[in-house]
């Protein structure tokens, strides 16, 4: 196991000698957003070194995938990022569709965009809510979970499940929108969303205590963000203008008009606020997608039940709520993947913690960890 040693000796201002305090945070603690352990070296209350230790939720999903047929892998991808499982479904299906040369009917593709943008709102609400809870503003948590609950209810009506959807399938999606007024309810939700977001913005982001807790905490400069592999709102909070929806223009995204919100200071405040603004953009995309969606099939019905792609490999990525999520599939021509690799954005973003935390207090360490928005199902896989 990891040894806790190498404690530095600190010379105090009055010349006395002191020793660093090594504090073990986690792995099971509410403020670590899952099962993350951080070994924090403290000089008084200031963190001098923080080292994340992960693997407490490692289930070996990549190994398990090698023992299942291509369709049986989809429920496993749900368990990667359990706050936004539509993304992993979609990324996996895109890689598989490339590998097996499948086409998706237009209505199916629209449904994927609609569910994934709803998912982005739900996932960002989770992140914002926990940012509020981390900084002592539990009210924001309640407001954010009100919004998240509406999305989760819509998903429940769509595919019967609130957390692990298993909705995106190779060649389309598992079912069409229910005809009990689901579309109208999505429209009503999207219409009311900007008001709810503005309320949260003025409630939390304009608050002087929230500003005091978040501004200038965990500043990440854009060069470092790129070099260390940060993507998604973490990179965009630092002003890295990089969004796969626009820059790789996959799926139907070229048809929609949306902006990519950017932060300027790269601190926890900007990262959280970028997430809030992304929800406005998701609402814009949703409105356009609901207007444009054509009739027709949602899945290619001619596909075989047992998928046996060609020998070869394929990779595809999408912009998830946490950053670029990619799936790399290697096939030996059989019914099971020979190798599946998941490029998880939360894993890459979490690696920034040891860069960002030193110099901040222990309570800011929790804020920085929260601002990276890790989901440990995806970090540990």
């Amino acid at each position, binding site marked *: *196991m*990891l040894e806790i040693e190498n404690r530095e000796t600190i010379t105090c201002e009055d010349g006395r000698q002191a020793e660093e305090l090594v504090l073990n945070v986690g792995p099971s603690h509410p403020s670590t957003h899952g099962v993350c352990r951080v070994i924090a070296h403290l000089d008084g209350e200031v963190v001098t070194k923080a080292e994340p230790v*992960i*693997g407490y939720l*490692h289930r*070996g999903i*990549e*190994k398990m995938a090698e*023992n*299942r*047929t291509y369709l049986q892998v989809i429920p496993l991808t749900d368990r990667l990022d359990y706050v936004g499982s539509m993304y992993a479904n979609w990324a996996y299906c895109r890689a598989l569709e*490339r590998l097996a040369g499948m086409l998706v009917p237009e209505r199916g593709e629209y449904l994927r965009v609609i569910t994934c943008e709803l998912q982005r709102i739900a996932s960002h609400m989770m992140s914002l809510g926990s940012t509020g809870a981390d900084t002592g503003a539990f009210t924001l948590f309640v407001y954010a979970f009100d919004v998240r609950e509406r999305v989760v209810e819509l998903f429940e009506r769509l595919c019967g499940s609130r957390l692990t959807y298993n909705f995106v399938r190779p060649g389309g999606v598992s079912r069409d929108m229910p005809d009990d007024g689901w579309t109208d309810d999505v429209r009503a939700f999207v219409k009311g969303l900007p008001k709810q977001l503005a309320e949260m913005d003025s409630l939390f982001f304009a608050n002087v205590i929230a500003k005091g807790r978040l501004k200038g905490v965990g500043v990440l400069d854009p060069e470092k963000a*790129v*070099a*260390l*592999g940060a993507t998604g709102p973490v990179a965009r909070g630092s002003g890295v203008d*990089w969004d796969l929806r626009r*820059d*790789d223009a996959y799926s139907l995204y070229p048809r929609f008009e949306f902006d990519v919100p950017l932060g300027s200071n790269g601190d926890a405040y900007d990262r959280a606020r970028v997430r809030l603004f992304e929800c406005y953009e998701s609402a814009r995309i949703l409105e356009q997608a609901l207007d444009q969606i054509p009739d027709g099939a949602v899945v290619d019905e001619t596909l075989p039940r*047992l998928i046996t792609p060609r020998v070869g490999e*394929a*990779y595809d*990525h999408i912009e998830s709520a946490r950053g*670029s999520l*990619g799936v*790399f599939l*290697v096939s030996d021509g*059989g*019914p*099971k993947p*020979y*190798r599946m*690799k998941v*490029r998880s954005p939360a*894993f*890459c973003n979490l*690696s920034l913690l040891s860069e960002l935390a030193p110099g901040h207090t222990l309570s800011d360490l929790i804020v920085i960890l929260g601002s990276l928005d890790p989901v440990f199902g995806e970090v*540990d*896989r």
Partner: protein
Amino acid sequence: MKIEELREHLCERHPDLCPLFSLEFGDGILVVDAEKLHDAASDLCDLGFDLLGWCTAVDRGTFFEMVYRLRSRTMQVGMFLKCQVPRESPSIASLTDLWPAANWHEREVYDLFGITFEGHPDLRRMFLPDDWPGHPLRKDYADDRMIRRPDYF
């Protein structure tokens, strides 16, 4: 810059790398020898591939195949860099000096495949405990707790 232009650009500057270059789904694939990996990677880094998305290994039976995913934000192209690592005492140069993002990805490959990365600043296991026997993503890995699914297909 499109991937075809990148190919010409690469051929001009590094004629030895050109025959190793191929295309699939609009991404470039460059297969190099393990000894030349670091040189090729640093050339690509200079060409403007500023993002190392991920790296992983594939157990090909007689050897391991290392796969690096690079992307350039300025050129908007993706690239795969591949090389073979022998199965016996597998070892390869670390790319952490070119892209610091490689740090955790290489630790993950070390943990799950047992490939060592020369020059890595902090090569420790990523997910599994330090005393875990073997490297689970190798195809020949087995332990007592593994449940074999019946082979229906």
